[in-house]
């Protein structure tokens, strides 16, 4: 078994209104110096050893993310 992390983020050119809303809330709470926030999704998969990188790539691109609007990064952590 291995733990695999998939991080999915909106593409740079895609408007991220949720991230903007968080960024705008920070100064209201007294936090300064944060110029931008982008919000994405973090998946943790428990994966057995038979699952290869190509399969993980397919899982990330076909279900966990929508390639039209999002990029993803896959990491094996253990």
């Amino acid at each position, binding site marked *: 078994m291995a733990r695999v992390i998939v991080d999915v983020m909106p593409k740079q050119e895609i408007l991220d*209104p*949720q991230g903007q809303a968080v960024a705008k809330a920070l100064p209201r709470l007294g936090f300064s110096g944060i110029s931008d926030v982008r919000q994405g999704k973090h998946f943790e998969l428990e994966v057995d050893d038979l699952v290869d990188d190509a399969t993980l790539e397919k899982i990330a691109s076909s*279900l*966990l993310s*929508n390639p*039209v*609007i999002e990029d993803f990064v896959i990491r094996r952590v253990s």
Partner: protein
Amino acid sequence: MTKVGVITFPGTLDDTDVVRAVSRAGAEPVNLWHGDHDLKGVDAVVVPGGFSYGDYLRCGAIARFAPVMTEVIEAAGKGMPVLGICNGFQILCESGLLPGALVRNAGLHYVCKDQWLKVENTSSAWSSRFEAGAEILVPVKHGEGNYTASQETLDQLEAEGRVLARYVSGNPNGAQRDIAGVVSENGRVVGLMPHPEHAIDALTGPSDDGLGMFLSLIDSVVKT
């Protein structure tokens, strides 16, 4: 009589109104369940609005893998007319039947109001009853209706006349180029965020402008 399938997923809300609109237009509605493996001999399919599978992961992301959608994607490939409304539009984009994606409204607010649209494409299976440039009043109600696609895709849609309709008198969700709905390359698959099925009778909606989409479909089925 033209048979129009209306899909119900867990979380679908607007199937009843679509069934009513199909009947009002003079076609026979056929209820389809998300787990169905066949389309029961229908001539066309409507994917209604709502929150299929709770909108988990992304709107439409889980629904596109439902057994009935496998059948819909195959039939659409052979030219069957398919209409996706609101969550149905999101599902058709996730399925790859239509280009682009629907992301969260630019203002973050859920919008629910009557919205003016300008119809542009009048050659699709679902829009032949409209005059080009006609302005119609139809309800919108969504939190993620902000149409997004690459600049090349948007240019191509416009060059090929595949913008079904645009928002006029204000863009409710930040959609790129005010796009409210788009048409597939073969003109058979249409997706739009506003709800024509809620505008089929002045007694219960803002107008009866939406009925034209269902009448157009019947014309196109009879023709083929």
